[in-house]
């Protein structure tokens, strides 16, 4: 079944998982409550596991993670956004896990090269979506202060959500249908959480493109510098 894995697709999905896992890993030791340290680490580990499988299908996982330049990464700009406050992290999780769940459900139902991986990952992602949804409710409908923070986070990340539905070469899914389903599911969670659906555009007004084209936001370069520094300082070494 897995005769040819489309490289662009493996990198897109793998980089999404890798980069978001890295961002979640930055929470270690900083979470708002001890129970949440454990929860965030579980999600980060699920994503890192997905990334390793995906990247390994098209090359050496470490070469791909540590030796590519920024422009060669194919992840969405959404996942590279800095953690911000806990509201930003939760909204990033909400937007991304809703997307990833729809995408992996479709891939798992098909018979393409990612069906096996997606079938396993979709269960993990269902939990991530639930986690983000539960927190969205509590923060949106918690205190005035938490509501305010959530409104800000929802709005700030909104312009990174359009990119998710740009077709990726090698993934045979209904992108437009996914976009509609995504909007419905996110809107439903936000409504229950007493949060308004952000207005404004869902993509940046820049013709150069976005993450899937290898064009990233400023914080990503710094993230990669930190992530790759040690590995690159010892060329050829094994760890």
């Amino acid at each position, binding site marked *: 079944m897995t005769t040819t894995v489309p490289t662009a697709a493996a990198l897109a999905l793998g980089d999404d998982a890798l980069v978001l896992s890295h961002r979640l890993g930055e929470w270690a*030791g*900083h979470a*708002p*409550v001890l129970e949440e*340290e454990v929860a965030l680490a579980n999600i980060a580990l699920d994503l890192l596991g997905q990334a390793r499988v995906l990247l390994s299908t098209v090359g050496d996982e470490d070469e791909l993670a540590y030796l590519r330049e920024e422009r060669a990464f194919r992840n969405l700009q959404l996942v590279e956004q800095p953690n911000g406050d806990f509201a930003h992290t939760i909204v990033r999780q909400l937007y991304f896990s809703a997307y990833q769940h729809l995408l992996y459900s479709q891939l798992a139902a098909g018979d393409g090269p990612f069906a096996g991986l997606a079938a396993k990952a979709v269960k993990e992602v269902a939990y991530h979506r639930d986690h983000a949804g539960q927190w969205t409710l509590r923060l949106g409908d918690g205190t005035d202060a938490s509501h305010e923070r959530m409104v800000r986070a929802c709005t700030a990340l909104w312009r990174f959500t359009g990119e998710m539905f740009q077709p990726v070469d090698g993934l045979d899914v209904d992108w437009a249908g996914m976009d509609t389903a995504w909007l419905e599911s996110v809107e439903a969670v936000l409504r229950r959480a007493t949060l308004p659906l952000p207005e404004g555009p869902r993509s940046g007004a820049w013709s150069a493109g976005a993450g899937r084209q290898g064009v990233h936001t400023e914080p990503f370069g710094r993230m990669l510098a*930190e992530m790759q520094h040690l590995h690159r300082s*010892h060329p050829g*070494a*094994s*760890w």
Partner: protein
Amino acid sequence: MATAAAHKAYGTEEEHAGTAAYERAFDAAVAADGRIEPRDWMPDAYRATLVRQMAQHAHSEIIGMQPEANWITRAPSLRRKAILMAKVQDEAGHGLYLYSAAETLGTSREELLDKLHSGRQKYSSIFNYPTLTWADVGAIGWLVDGAAITNQVPLCRCSYGPYARAMVRICKEESFHQRQGYELLLALSRGTPEQHAMAQDAVDRWWWPSLMMFGPPDDESAHSAQSMTWKIKRHSNDDLRQRFVDICVPQAESLGLTLPDPDLKWNEERGHYDFGPIDWTEFKEVLKGNGPCNEQRLTQRRKAHEEGAWVREAAAAYAAKHSDDTKAEQA
């Protein structure tokens, strides 16, 4: 880790005319290697010692996340990154188990965290040392976790039930921590000359602080004797330290690294390794707050707690608003 209804302190001594009888029963249970459970009568000093020790242990787990988390974002391979994340996560989990165990004696986690944040309760001084290179992650796993395990295994038989049960779970989970550290160092030791040097440097810096983790020498240890009688502690500081040294010497040889102690040599007569004198001045200074990272560790901990307050408040507010919905759904 027992039930909260059972958490409430079991009366005070004044309430009980028969304190002497309770005390005899307590002493007999401890002497017979029985377990004391949360609502059993216990001497106030026993309770206080346990709360202090469990709290300090829990604090050490959560402060101990920091030096290693320092390397999560820079881990040099994805495999190592996954291992390190899982390990730091375990430390949060172990903190949770231990705070729960402490709560069985009626002290809330909030109270204990407050004491940590205000400096009224301590955590293990070892975490006031910095992790300067990637090899430090390995040295912590091998030496610091190794020393911790040497200390903790006997605690699985501690006389206080909830503490002993927490320790059983922790020891089981921690066995991977030490092995991953050793494996990490082995890869470095057998790697490039730069990697080897990095590993040796880390071992040079962590060896002595690890030996200090067993606490002051027996003749200067303030709490030891009483804790041994109560079977909260099973072996003396010096015995455990010696055991640790004996275990480490051959392990270091297999690693191809040297331990930074010229006096280290096998003593046929004692059947143990002799080792050089420990610099207790450094230990006391770090304990007093003058270690390289005391301020940094506590500041980060307080910051995480303060910055998380709005999140905890929001969830509590939501629960208060919606407690009726949940009941309606379940009905």
